[in-house]
């Protein structure tokens, strides 16, 4: 009997679906317009349409994996309830003080920093826990009651409780939460020890505040979704995609919605990880170039890189997540020349409205897309598969008036310059992402997706010294496809500063056992069979006094002194690789013990791919490249059969993206359906 696993990725414009037939391993792509007012509406429409297309009933769906930007958008658009903070007396301003970090050192006006809970709704209570978890001042319950009454008076409906050193001893937070919940039974309450049990009070408080404010938002959405699914006869379990690339249940997502922040690009990164295995390319830089931004994530040794902190709208989110470096470079990035004759490309963007000049929506400033059009790299009649007729003349004029003339260049050189500067910025972002981990770009291939990326990928690869670029199949729904591979993951952590020597072993054992119990309880609640549970442990090490830690796995199935010794040795190695020096005579410290409590879901099998018969180019057109006009073959991607090899310059078109193969590159079809561009000459 056919059963279907459905992955849904809800973007700003489209809701992308991948429907996996679990018996055959074949996945089908589907796209419907996003319904911004209630995204679950588009989701249901997409599932219904897809089921109809496949001729199966919705009762055949075994699981729905749901990627959502609902949490992120609620923060960015401030569609959040009024919140309050209860914290250790004397420290109620921690949230407002922040870390003082500023980006523009000479600016004489302050940068605006988001503050989600104002001073009048932050309340101190009498209590104090020390760094080692010992209680210095017991919790004064009367002061908690008084704070709760003030929360009530303020009208706030979401409460973040964040006490100093609660990661080391959560008792005070737990008791305070009970009291607050007693007094305010309808309030949404989040405690820092359960949301982000890690050292550094500002980051932990910030994460807890975001979590508390998002609880009603996400819970409301999920209950509406539940209703719609029931109405549609779908009883399959729903899993939400988290920032760490794993999935979680609606129950957990409702309690810990901060885990959904920054989950947007994680499907694509997860897809890159799967493709790394399929293509036997263990080291990949995944780049996603859209209209305004360029997202970079790294797959190294076959695994996507995670970090322990990210930010949304400048607010820190201290949770494990897939590492994404984002810069303001996309098709809509604006090119302009300043009064000293400098050409800037981005980070300002024309976005979708007014958009590039060529969109005919009132945009006057030339963009990267306009430059690509002027260079002949985009076909004005085949944008979005011909759905939008582009204004090539307008784009050309804007580039001449605003770039070529002020720089004293001819039109073609100016347009190439715009593309080259954008490419240089993207390459610098990739280099920095690799560099800070001590990785060498030459060991990596690029994998490019997103609507605007195909035109820049080969040049960007050349710029960083990489010689292969992968263009995956179904790039338009790649992110949804990646979600099909998500496991249930609960990231658990305990910050406990200890010297990594034999004396630490009893304490470490206790922490790991404690995490293990917590993991088991969560995975049991999720209904994960015991055989499918995993408990990998990571230790975050640093040399005493360092500000940042490196996570190293604690080898599983190894007895204690050896396991710790191996982890310490691995830390020294990682430090040396990353930072060019290690201090092997120094005993490092463990700062945080992490466990990724994992419930393995059945994995989709390999995607069968049947190559089209070898076709022919649909024509040629002149493009400008490397300073001269060249006649480039133009292919439909669908016409690229297994035996086709193309030499640049060439253009490959598909409905939502265009791929530029520069001279010196050769493009072939991999048996899995991906296109692989290989650099065959240093320069054409």
């Amino acid at each position, binding site marked *: 009997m056919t059963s279907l696993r459905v992955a849904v990725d809800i973007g700003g414009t489209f809701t992308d679906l991948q429907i996996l037939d679990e018996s055959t391993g074949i996945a089908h792509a589907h796209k419907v317009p996003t319904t911004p007012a209630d995204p679950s509406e588009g989701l249901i429409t997409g599932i219904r349409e897809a089921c109809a297309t496949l001729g199966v009933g919705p009762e055949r769906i075994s699981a729905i994996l749901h990627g959502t930007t609902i949490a992120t958008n609620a923060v960015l658009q401030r569609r959040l309830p009024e919140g309050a903070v209860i914290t250790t007396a*004397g*420290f*109620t*301003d*921690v949230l*407002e*003080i922040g*870390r*003082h*970090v*500023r980006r*523009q*050192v*000479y600016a*004489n*006006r*302050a940068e605006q920093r988001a503050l989600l809970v*104002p*001073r*009048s709704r932050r309340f101190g209570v009498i209590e104090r826990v*020390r*760094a080692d978890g010992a209680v*210095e001042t017991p919790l004064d319950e009367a002061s908690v009651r008084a704070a709760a009454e003030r929360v009530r008076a303020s009208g706030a409906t979401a409460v973040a409780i964040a006490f100093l*050193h609660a990661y080391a001893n959560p008792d005070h937070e737990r008791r305070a939460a009970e009291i607050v919940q007693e007094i305010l039974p309808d309030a949404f309450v989040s405690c820092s020890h359960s949301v982000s049990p890690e*050292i*550094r*009070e*500002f*980051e932990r408080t910030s994460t807890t505040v975001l979590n508390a404010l998002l609880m009603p938002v996400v819970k409301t959405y999920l209950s509406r979704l539940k209703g719609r699914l029931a109405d549609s006869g779908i009883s399959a379990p729903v899993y939400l995609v988290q920032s760490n690339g794993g999935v979680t249940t609606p129950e957990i997502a409702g309690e810990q919605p901060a885990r959904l922040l920054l989950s947007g690009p994680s499907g694509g990164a997860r897809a890159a990880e799967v493709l790394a295995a399929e293509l036997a390319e263990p080291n990949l830089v995944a780049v996603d170039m859209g209209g305004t931004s360029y997202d970079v994530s790294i797959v190294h040794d076959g695994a996507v890189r995670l970090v322990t902190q990210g930010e949304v709208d400048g607010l820190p989110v201290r949770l494990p997540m897939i590492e994404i470096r984002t810069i303001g470079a996309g098709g809509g990035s604006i090119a302009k020349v300043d*009064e*000293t*004759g*400098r*050409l*800037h490309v981005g980070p300002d963007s024309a976005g979708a409205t007014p958009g590039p000049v060529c969109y005919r929506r009132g945009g006057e400033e030339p963009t990267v897309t306009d430059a690509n059009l002027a260079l002949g790299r985009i076909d004005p009649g085949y944008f979005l598969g011909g759905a939008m007729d582009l204004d090539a003349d307008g784009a050309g004029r804007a580039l001449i008036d605003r770039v070529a003339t002020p*720089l*004293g260049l001819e039109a073609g050189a100016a347009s*190439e*310059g715009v593309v*080259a*500067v954008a490419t*240089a910025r993207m390459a*610098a972002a990739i*280099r*920095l992402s690799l*560099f*800070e981990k001590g990785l060498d770009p030459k060991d990596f291939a690029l994998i490019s997706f997103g609507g605007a990326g195909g035109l820049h990928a080969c040049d960007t690869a050349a710029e960083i010294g990489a010689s292969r670029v992968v263009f995956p199949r179904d790039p338009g729904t790649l992110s949804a496809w990646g979600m099909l591979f998500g496991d249930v993951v609960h990231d658990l952590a305990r910050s406990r*500063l200890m010297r990594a020597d034999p004396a630490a072993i009893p304490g470490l054992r206790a922490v790991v056992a404690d995490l293990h119990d917590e993991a088991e309880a969560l995975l049991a609640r999720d209904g994960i069979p015991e055989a499918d549970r995993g408990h990998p442990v990571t230790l975050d090490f640093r040399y*005493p*006094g*360092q*500000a*940042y830690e490196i996570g190293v796995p604690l080898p599983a199935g190894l007895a204690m002194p050896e396991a710790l010794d191996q982890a310490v040795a691995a830390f020294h190695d990682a*430090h040396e690789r*990353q*930072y*060019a*020096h290690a*201090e092997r005579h*120094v005993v490092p410290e463990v700062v945080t013990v992490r466990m990724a409590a994992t419930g393995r879901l059945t994995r989709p099998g390999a995607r069968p791919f049947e190559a089209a018969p070898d076709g022919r180019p649909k024509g040629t057109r002149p493009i400008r490249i490397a300073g001269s006009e060249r006649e480039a073959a133009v292919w439909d991607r669908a016409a690229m059969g297994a035996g086709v090899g193309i030499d640049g310059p060439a253009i490959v078109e598909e409905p939502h993206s265009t791929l530029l193969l520069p001279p010196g590159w050769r493009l072939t079809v991999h048996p899995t359906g991906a296109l692989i561009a290989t650099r065959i000459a240093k320069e054409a």
Partner: protein
Amino acid sequence: MDELDPIQVEIIRNALVAAAEEMSVTVWRTSRSAVVREILDYSISVFDAHGRSTAQSAAMPVHLNSMPACLDEILANHIPIEEWNEGDIIITNDPYAGGQHLPDIQTFKPVFLDGQRIAIAGILVHHLDVGGGAAGSYDASATEIYQEGFRMPPLKLAEGGKRNEAVIKLLLRNSREPVNVGGDFASQLAALDTGVANLQRIGRRYGPATLAAAAERIQAQSEAAMRAAIARIPDGTYHFEDFVDDDGIERDRPLRIRVALTVAGDSVTVDLDGSSPQAVGPVNCTLNMTRSAVICGVMMALGADVPANAGCYRPVTVKAPEGLVVNARSPAPVANRMATGHRIVTTVLGAFAEAMPGQVPAAYYGVSYAYALNCFMADGTRRVYFDLECGGWGAHPEEDGASAFSCGFHNIANAPVEMLENTLPVTFTEYALAPGSGGRGRTRGGLGLSRAFRLDAPEGAFAANLERFKFAPYGLAGGEAGQPGRLTITRAGSSVAEDLPSKVSGLKVARGDVLRLQTAGGGGYGPPAERPRAAIERDRAEGYAETSG
């Protein structure tokens, strides 16, 4: 490609900035001490083959604008460029050879490609302790630089790739914190190598000639942007003065900083003649430090988004007669040069406010709140708690000043209370905004903050180099001054907070004593009577306005 096109300039600029950023990442993630690790007290600059700054990683202007002058000084008077060979590292921390104060150790490494020098990589790191009379090398009682720590004139730390380990041993032997300083120093040198490798790659990619031409163009563009911004200011000479409380030794003698700002076409001259004679205590600035503060003030006043490099300095002439607090003669002590440095910045900004009314904010808190508590542990070991803080930003004509906002001049981050308590014998009792500290005005100054901590070790010695206890951050256009700072100690068992002066050295602290620092708020802008009703109500509702007890 022989001819330099504007596209290539931009691409090379991008590559040079990326090289500086990659060096910065190396220091940031590998350093050991709290100063570097959480406070980010270091700077990176990439110079062209002649030693002219071309790209910087955005960090700390006080350093950035000082490194180029230090390099100039080294090249002119110590180690001429012909003697810089491949594999050499030049090091100094000598304030009288282009440095600022002893904890700032500057290192430079020439970058060679096929035997030709194509660039110089430079890094300055503030080290936790380089000896001297007090922990952190901040001896507020020093009257000569010899009391301030270990001094290295410009010399070669490495020659032809071979490092002189003796220099490092000497340095570490003279430090109270050899492990941390050793770790930070290793980071500093690793980052230099990162820079060299990157600059070689860039040189190979574009060719030395193109790289050199692009560097000149990049500097010329910044110079042009500065000149364009200056040309918009009416010509004339504008005066302003402000005061440093005292030097910590002669406590009743305020130090005057006087600025005559002359705008002539597209250049400015900042003349500090008329400022006080050099101080007995360590608040003196070397001329290089003064120049760096003036440049920072000029760039902040112009508010122009100009990439900082050697071109920015060309339209600015700095004059300061020798023997003044703004151009001290050796061996005057300089450890707390930031007291005067910040005041130079606020005075320059004040002069610009005269020249371009309505465009420059009122005074910010104007001091690096540097303090150090040397903790004597029961087992005989010592632990140094060193910290820096900031205060309120000045009100801008169009908006309130930000609270607890770091001035770009020193651009510090704060250290998390939980991190400090995990590693040091201190317990914090307060970290909060200081209500009422922002100067009143049509727009209000930002709030300062308060930070209080208790010593948990048997005893300790406290030193502080603070400012703005007597001369508050000025308001503009009828706005009131921000509230000055305050430092108190409440002895264990007592409930009385005793006031301490702004400069403290060797203060004995016992277990249970609580030290509390309150930093200054920013000045207000415009008459307080013109403050909108809604803003007044918001201040009251949020508790920004009430004065603290």
